[in-house]
């Protein structure tokens, strides 16, 4: 296993190099000139050139790329071009609010989706199954934005169960007061596609020979479903969670914008609007590294979920 992990870590280097090149060329070819945004209402070409010089965007491309590589390996992305705040500080202060929302969302959504999926799979073909599947399809066809607008209006304003927006310095106040509505919303929206997907995983397993054998052996339905079917369906479920896991670190920018949550998603949008390349670079690289590490961890976990898996 150690050899496998070392090999996977080694493979991360070309991936990071690819990410660096991609971000660099995208920013320089597609992204706007930050000096234009920072120059204010009235500025002359000389002032714009001065800003470009200070930001270092007047340097040759190879030099800018070299600086970027150095930043990646020293974890020092300097300061934000628009606010002069240290990029590392931006990341550290923004990841907390994002995780406060996204970790409960992941846990609740996955638990509910697995629970409902196994129940629906068990009664496959029945009226309940069809009704739930139709509801899921309808729910999936509505835009996330519509849900946000309706939920915020209904639960925040009309019913007054939650504040419409806001965030505080206290973790507990955030978790108990400001986070429940966005969490509920994200779970509600994410549940339908997850449920459909996990149901198909369970159905795949239910139709396997070993399930028929287990039943023939006289095992109870509860044991068949929870011990045999669930365990075997966990591999694709784990893969799916693994894929969605890096997303929790950037959050949902729509949720963060609508509920005034000072998270990373909102920060990225602000950075893109202000052509704040140091922030964009840092977030993208950090996300790429997290994705690779989580993928590796998920692959390692397969071994424990399914003993048939071996590292080669």
């Amino acid at each position, binding site marked *: 296993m150690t050899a496998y992990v070392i090999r996977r870590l080694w493979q991360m280097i070309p991936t990071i190099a690819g990410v660096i090149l991609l971000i660099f060329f995208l920013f320089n070819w*597609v*992204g*706007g*000139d*930050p000096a*234009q*945004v*920072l*120059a*204010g*209402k*009235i*500025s*002359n*070409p000389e*002032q*714009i050139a*001065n*800003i470009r010089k*200070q930001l270092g965007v007047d340097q040759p491309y190879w030099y800018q790329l070299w600086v970027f590589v150095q930043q990646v390996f020293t974890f020092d992305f300097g300061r934000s071009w*628009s*606010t*002069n*705040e240290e990029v590392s500080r*931006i990341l550290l*202060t923004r990841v907390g609010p994002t995780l406060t929302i996204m970790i409960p969302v992941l846990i609740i959504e996955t638990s509910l989706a697995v629970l409902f999926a196994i129940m629906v799979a068990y009664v496959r073909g029945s009226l309940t199954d069809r009704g739930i599947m139709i509801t899921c399809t309808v729910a999936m066809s509505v835009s996330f934005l519509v849900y946000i*607008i309706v939920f*915020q*209006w209904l639960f*925040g*304003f009309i019913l*007054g169960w939650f*504040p*419409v*927006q*806001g*965030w505080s*310095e206290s973790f507990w106040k955030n978790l108990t007061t400001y986070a429940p509505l966005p969490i509920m919303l994200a779970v509600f929206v994410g549940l339908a596609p997850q449920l459909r997907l996990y149901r198909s995983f369970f159905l795949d397993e239910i139709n396997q020979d070993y399930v028929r054998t287990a039943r023939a052996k006289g095992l109870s339905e509860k044991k068949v479903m929870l011990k045999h079917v669930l365990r075997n369906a966990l591999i694709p479920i784990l893969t799916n969670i693994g894929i969605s896991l890096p997303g929790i670190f950037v959050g949902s920018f729509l949720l963060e*914008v*609508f*509920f*005034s949550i*000072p998270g990373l998603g*909102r*920060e990225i949008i*602000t950075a893109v*609007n202000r*052509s704040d390349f140091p922030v964009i670079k840092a977030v993208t690289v950090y996300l790429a590294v997290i994705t690779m590490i989580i993928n590796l961890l998920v692959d390692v976990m397969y071994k424990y979920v399914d003993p048939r898996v071996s590292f080669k």
Partner: protein
Amino acid sequence: MVLPTFQPLRIPRFFAVLVALLLILAAATADAQKKVLRIAFRTAETGFDPQRVFDRYSVGICENIFEPLLTYDYLARPARLVALTAEAIPEPDEGGTRYTFRIKPGIYFADDPVFKGRKRELVAKDFEYMVKRFRDPKNRSPYEWLFENKLIGLDELTEKAKKSGTFDYDAHVPGIEVRGKYVITFKLKEADYNFLYVMAMPNVVPMPREVVEAYAADTHAHPVGTGPFILKEWVRRSKIVLERNPYHRGYELETRYADPTDPWDRKVMDELRGKRLPALDRVEISPIEDEQPRYLAFLNKEHDILDETPFSFIHQVLPNGKLSKALEKEHMNVFPELQPEITYDVFNIDDKVLGGQENPVGGYSPERVALRRAMVLAHDRDQEIAIIRKNQALPAQTPVPPGVVGYDPALHSTEQDPDPARAKALLDMFGYVDRDGDGWREAPDGRPLVIQYKYNIGGQEARQLAELWAKSMKAVGIRLEATAVQFADLLNDKRVGNFEVAGSAWIADYPDAQNFLQLLYGPNTNQSNESRFRLAEYDRLYEKSLGFPDGEERNKLYREMNRLLLAYAPWRLGVHRIFNHLQYPWVKGYKKHPILYTNFKYLDIDVPAQQLASK
């Protein structure tokens, strides 16, 4: 008999507990009685170093922490200058080229560890340092233009700094003369009767040199000024808390220029009579970018004021132009404000766009001028006002908005009014006709006529305006292609002339027509003159106008310049937008100022009413 030993201790302990409880209760009551204003900003701030910020919300915070030499009277309309940290408004000397300010003694900066417990007085040297900061290339001040080509010897100092890499703040600048602790004279290269307005801008304010140097790594986070509030808490792009500056000298509302017939003025005077300002203890500001949460948070009484009611909710707030019954029931107040700003579309007047490509709308030849004028006439501005602006705008008749010195309400021309029939006739007359029968007009030389319109990719309103342009042009047979580009690219394209037609807007930096008319001054090409309009006659009139103070002579020149604008059509004049500001009845002293960004220092809160409503 043995007496219990704890008995004598009981009484003091009981009293101690009682006193502690009373103290806690008193503190809680004092906290509950604190006058706290809660408000949302439409966009996130960037920081509070006044010489380094330009977005209106950051500058709006600076306005409360710092104080310029001059400011505007709160109630006077049109806006009127008054002295703030200066003893009086100076008279322009030597034909508008010399201004001497005397600073009021005994004004102190808010406390800061840098001062090591000593009170730090505001002195003339602080203003000298401030002006120099604008011109230090390292600060890349977005408002550097205020002091560019302005004060004798300052440009040379900046040039020296560019070469050496260090700005010499101790160097003598002939255009800035400090005499004693409290007198400073600015000597200008040329006459400028608007210089006093510059000295009233909310970011032309001093921060002590020792503070700037101590917090050089992050001056945005350490604003120290003489203003009525201090920055108590700042969670970047999430929460800004201002608290009353205990060092502030305080003042009373000036009512000299109030209009007793104006109901808002009367209300403000009644509500603030005899009160020491600032009355607020604390201001809590949350940046909320999206319109719905900002609007709902206000209706939920999470905020006390809704600055600039979002246009998308205007029909709920003001159905048929009147406050809705539901809001009326809440005794809500609405302040409609015609902002000193203008939206407009710019035609690139250069014959070729950047890169050498032929520009179909550029040039001064009769047929090109006719094409631009026809496009202006064909544009359905009425629809823009009714649908996109939701009737919250007035059609612009001149580049100068109402409420600005030099605005002429009598000026009205039909040249910018929608008239598709006239547009078609004009196009036919100058040879822009459909030769191949495909439904689109060709240029007079027979080449296809396709006009490119650029707009900001990020804005819904910009997209709607682009669609209206295409639709309006189609109605007269002109093919217009709208392209969405990144905001930064659009700024750059407009600055370097890489466009044919594009949308734009301008809000007054100071309330004088010159601030708007400079947008068409030839030498400002590649800066603020986005249309690249270079007409010798216009430039001559503009330069001549700079030598006159406000008065009929100058207004005559402004009228002449406006006539040239209408004749050559480098712009399509858009609208002056109306913004509606809502306040709950417990907010006292409210009146929106056309130039000042905020009015926190004039507001008061009826705390019991606010608390009752929150329950």
